[in-house]
């Protein structure tokens, strides 16, 4: 084992690591060039890198899919059935990581959530304030639902309530759609900021604004989604 002081071995770890099998320095992406063994996807590898994409929010679905299939073929556990147990385990773990990465990046909302997680260091200090009007609406709706559930479904009062709840449901669904429609524009703004160098104060402010707005949209969307689920459960 190496006897280097901890600080130095950490640097080594951050550079390219060694092949788990033959210990030669790795140059290939997922295979050792010398012994041709499959290499585990590092835990530090983000989903964008994992799928061979730059860390951008606007993604061409065709490219995402093509990269996913290509890597799936590379890692698929079926191709490792005759290999050693270690190699089988690596291919399985890689395939699982790849699937999660693909599922996450495929859906724009999950993709944005994931990016916000990656940028968490920057966003943590930005706390979005909850929108009071939305909260009041949710609590009011929750009370209407309680009344609705407590009454016999066929009563006249409940028929009226049902009509109001259906109306609310439509308006919340519209609101959710409006929020989601705002995302592509924010994605484009974020990507443009990433391409901009060097980073100055102005672009840092812009960056925070875009991240904060994305956080707001995703949070409000979750609140609305939860109350909508409850609504749909109760009124069908």
């Amino acid at each position: 084992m190496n006897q280097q002081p901890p600080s130095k071995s950490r640097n080594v770890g951050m550079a390219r690591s060694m092949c788990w099998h033959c210990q030669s320095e790795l140059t290939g992406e997922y295979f050792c060039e010398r012994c041709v063994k499959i290499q585990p996807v590092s835990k530090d590898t983000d989903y964008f890198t994992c799928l061979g994409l730059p860390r951008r929010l606007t993604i061409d679905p065709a490219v995402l899919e093509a990269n996913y299939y290509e890597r799936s073929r590379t890692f698929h556990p079926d191709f490792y059935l005759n290999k050693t147990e270690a190699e089988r385990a690596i291919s399985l773990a890689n395939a699982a990581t790849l699937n999660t990465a693909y599922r996450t990046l495929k859906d724009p909302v999950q993709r944005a959530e994931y990016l916000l997680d990656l940028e968490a260091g920057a966003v943590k200090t930005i706390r979005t304030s909850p929108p009071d009007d939305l909260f009041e609406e949710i609590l009011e709706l929750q009370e209407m639902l309680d009344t609705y559930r407590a009454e016999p479904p066929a009563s006249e009062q409940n028929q009226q309530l049902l009509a109001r709840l259906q109306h609310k449901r439509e308006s919340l669904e519209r609101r959710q759609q409006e929020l989601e429609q705002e995302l592509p524009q924010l994605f484009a703004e974020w990507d443009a900021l990433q391409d901009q160098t060097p980073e100055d104060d102005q672009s840092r402010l812009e960056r925070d604004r875009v991240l904060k707005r994305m956080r707001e949209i995703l949070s409000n969307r979750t609140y609305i989604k939860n109350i909508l689920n409850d609504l749909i459960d109760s009124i069908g």
Partner: protein
Amino acid sequence: MAYSDKVIDHFNNPRNMGSFGKDEEGVGTGMVGAPECGDVMKLQIKVQDNRIVDAKFKTFGCGSAIASSSLATEWLKGKTLEEAQQIKNTDIVQELNLPPVKIHCSVLAEDAIKAALADYQKKAAAKTSSGSSQ
């Protein structure tokens, strides 16, 4: 995961559920939410002579969130504003035996208390300053 008996008790018999009018005399309102799970909590205090004489809550969320806010209103009643400021989420965790995955519910309750206190103090300050300028 099972809820503790205390959580179930607060969930089945929530204390002080309801609300005060927002602009009622001496009322402070705290409204907070957890974006991760979509829980929404509204907690209100009614203050007379620097002491909380009544508290109410409305929570839309899981059992632990409801129990945390219910317990918070119980604790708030009778406390001075300074004492109320001292309530920590860890006290709630301990009292309700919340498991690690539900700690954020107690954090939400503490945030709601702080928000309600801040809202009351803001309103009180606005009242004195407008009173003195007249």
